[in-house]
C-alpha cells in the first residue's frame, strides 16, 4: 500500500456494512494513493471522524445501528465542509431526493461497473473538501486524477515525480514544480478544469442492458 504510509495523503472513509465492499473500495482507493479508513456502520464512522478527519466519505445508505441517511444529517451539520459520496445498491427516488437535499452531489450505484468513474468522483470530492477547508492539494491522490486526466502532466513525468517524492518524503506537488512539470498557477488552473469537467449526476434508473 504505497500511499498509506504518507500521513499527508488524502484521506477517505468508506462506511458500509458489507465487508466485501469496504475491502474492494479500500483496495481501489489505496492503489490511487489514498489513505482509507473503514467503518461498518454510522456510529463507528462518527467515532472515527475526529481522529481520521477524512477529505471525503463514501457512504452506504442501508446500514444497521445508524442508517446512512441519519449519519449524513450529522455529518452535514458537524462537518459541513467534508464532501460525501453516497453509494447504494438501489436508489429509490424519494431517497435520492432526501440525499440531494442534504447537499450530496454524487450518488454512485453498486456494483461499480466503471472504476474510472468512481476514482474521478472521489478525487473530485477530495478536491472540493480541500478547497473548502483551504488545505493544499499536493499529494498523489487526487493529483493523479487532476493532472493526468486532462493531460497537464505526462504519465512518465508523474510516476518519476511520485517515486522521487516518496524517497525525499516531500510533497508530490513540490517535486512536480521542481521538475518543471507544472507551475503553481498551472496547478490551480488544472484543479479548476478538473472540477468543471467532472460533472456530477444522480443515477439514471435506465437500464441499457438487453433483455
Amino acid at each position, binding site marked *: 500500500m504505497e500511499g498509506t504510509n504518507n500521513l499527508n495523503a488524502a484521506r477517505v472513509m468508506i462506511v458500509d456494512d*458489507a465487508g*466485501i*465492499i469496504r*475491502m*474492494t*473500495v479500500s*483496495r*481501489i482507493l489505496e*492503489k490511487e494513493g489514498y489513505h482509507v479508513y473503514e467503518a461498518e456502520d454510522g456510529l463507528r464512522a462518527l467515532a472515527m471522524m475526529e481522529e481520521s478527519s477524512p477529505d471525503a466519505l463514501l457512504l452506504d445508505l*442501508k446500514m444497521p445501528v445508524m442508517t446512512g441517511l441519519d449519519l449524513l444529517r450529522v455529518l452535514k451539520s458537524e462537518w459541513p465542509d467534508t464532501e460525501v459520496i453516497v453509494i447504494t*445498491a*438501489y436508489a*429509490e*427516488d*424519494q*431517497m*435520492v431526493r432526501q440525499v*440531494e437535499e442534504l447537499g450530496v452531489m454524487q450518488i454512485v450505484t*453498486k*456494483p*461499480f*461497473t466503471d*472504476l474510472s468513474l468512481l476514482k474521478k468522483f472521489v478525487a473530485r470530492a477530495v478536491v472540493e473538501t480541500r478547497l473548502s477547508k483551504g488545505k493544499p492539494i499536493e499529494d498523489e491522490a487526487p493529483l493523479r486524477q487532476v493532472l493526468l486526466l486532462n493531460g497537464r502532466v505526462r504519465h512518465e513525468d508523474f510516476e518519476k515525480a511520485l517515486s522521487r517524492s516518496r524517497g525525499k518524503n516531500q510533497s508530490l506537488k513540490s517535486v512536480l514544480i521542481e521538475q518543471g512539470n507544472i507551475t503553481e498557477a498551472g496547478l490551480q488552473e488544472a484543479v479548476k478544469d478538473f472540477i468543471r469537467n467532472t460533472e456530477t449526476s*444522480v443515477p*439514471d*434508473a*435506465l*437500464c*441499457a*442492458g*438487453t*433483455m
Partner: protein
Amino acid sequence: MVNTDNVRVPDEALQTMSVLMVDDEANVLRSLKRVLRTEPYKIITADSGEEGLKLLKEQSFQMIVSDQRMPSMSGIEFLEKAREISPQTIRIILTGYSDLQTAEDAINRVRIYRFLCKPWNDEDLKSTIREGLNKWWLEQENKRMFRTIQEQNRSLKQWNEKLGHMVEERTKALRNTQEQLVQSEKMASLGVLAGGVAHEINNPLGGILGITQLLLSDCIEDKQLKEDLETIQNAAVHCSEIVKNLLSFSRGNDSQKRDIVSFDKIVDEVMMLIGHTFRKKNITMEKNIPEDFPYLVVNQHQIKQVLVNLLVNAQQASQKGGKIHVRARRDDDRTMSLEVADHGSGIPREIMDKIFDPFFTTKPEGEGTGLGLSVSYRIMQEHGGKITVDSTEEGTCISLVLPAKAAADYEEKDSGTESGQGPDREKTEEFEALFAEGTNK
C-alpha cells in the same frame, strides 16, 4: 294456431268483405241479392264468366258464388281462371244441373269449397256463405299469425345469436382478465423476492467487479490472464444487469413519479443510447409521431426503459438493412398508443403466452436476461396501461396503450426533466396527484 271451432269472423270484418255472384240469369242474381240483403258483406254481381274475371282483376273478393251452366264460359272454366287470379278466394258453385264430370272437375280443377244446388234453401245459403267467409278469414288470420310467429322466431334466433356472441365475448374478456391476473401475480411475487435478493447480491457483485477491474489494470502484459479476468468481468456485469432489472420489479416510490415529456424526445434520447446497435446492422428507424400528439405524463425513466427493451428486441428481430417503425397516435378519448413495429419473422405462436414471463428468453445464453418484456409489462401496468402484441410472419408490432390521463394537454410545455430536478420537480408532483388514481391497484 287459431281454433276454428270457437273463433267466428267478427261482423266488422264481414262488413269489409265482398262476394262475387255470377249467373247468366238476371232473376237468379236478383233473388240472391234479395235473400242476402240483410247480410253484412257486400254483394257484387256479374252476368258472365268474362264479366266476373274483369271484376276480379279490378278488386279483391273473399268469395265467388258461380252458376255452372253459362253460355260462353262454364262455371268450372270461370272458377279455374278465377283461382289463378285470386287463389285465396273461396269458391262456391251454385247449379241447377249437376253431373258427375262437373262434380269431379269442381273438386280437382277448381278446389271448390261447396257445391250448392238450385233451388237453394235461404238459410243454408246464408250459413254456407258465412262459413266460407269465416274460413277465408281464419286462413288469413292463421297466415298472419304464422308470419308473426315466424318473425318472432327470427328475432328470437337473432337475439339468441347475439346473446351467444355476448357470452362468448364476456368469456373471452374474463379469460383475458384471468390471464392478466395470473401474470400480475407472477410479477408481484417476483417483485417481493427481487427487492430482497437484489440488495444481497449487489454487494458481493460489487466486490467481484471492483477487484476484477483492479486486477485488470495491473496485468496488461499477461494476455491470457487478462482474457480470463475480462470473462469474469463480463459475467459479473451481466449479473448486475439482471439484478438491476429485478429491482425494477420491487416497487419503489419512484414508480409513482410522473414527468411531462414529449414522446418524440424520449425516442430520440433512447436512440442516442442504442443507436449504434442499429447502425451496426444498417437498420433504419422511421418515426411517425403526429405533430399535435400530446405530451406524456409518465415516469420517463420507466418509459425509456420500456422503449429500450422494445427497440432492442425489434433490432435483434430485424434483418440487416431492415426498417423499424415507431408510431404514436390517439386511439379515442380514452386511450393512446405508442407502437414499435419490425419486419422480422414474428413471434412463434407456441411461445406467445410466455413472452411476458420473467426469465423467459429466446436469446442465446448470456445475451438476454428474459426480463425485458416482463419489466415492461409491469411498468405499463403501473401507468394504468397495457402492452399488446400483434405478431405475424411478416413482423411484430408491440403497442403500449396508455390511458388518456397520461396525456398532458399542458400549456407550459416542458422540455422534459432530468430525474425531475429543480423546478421541473414541482410540476412533476402536480401531475403525480393527477395520476395517482390510475396507479393504485
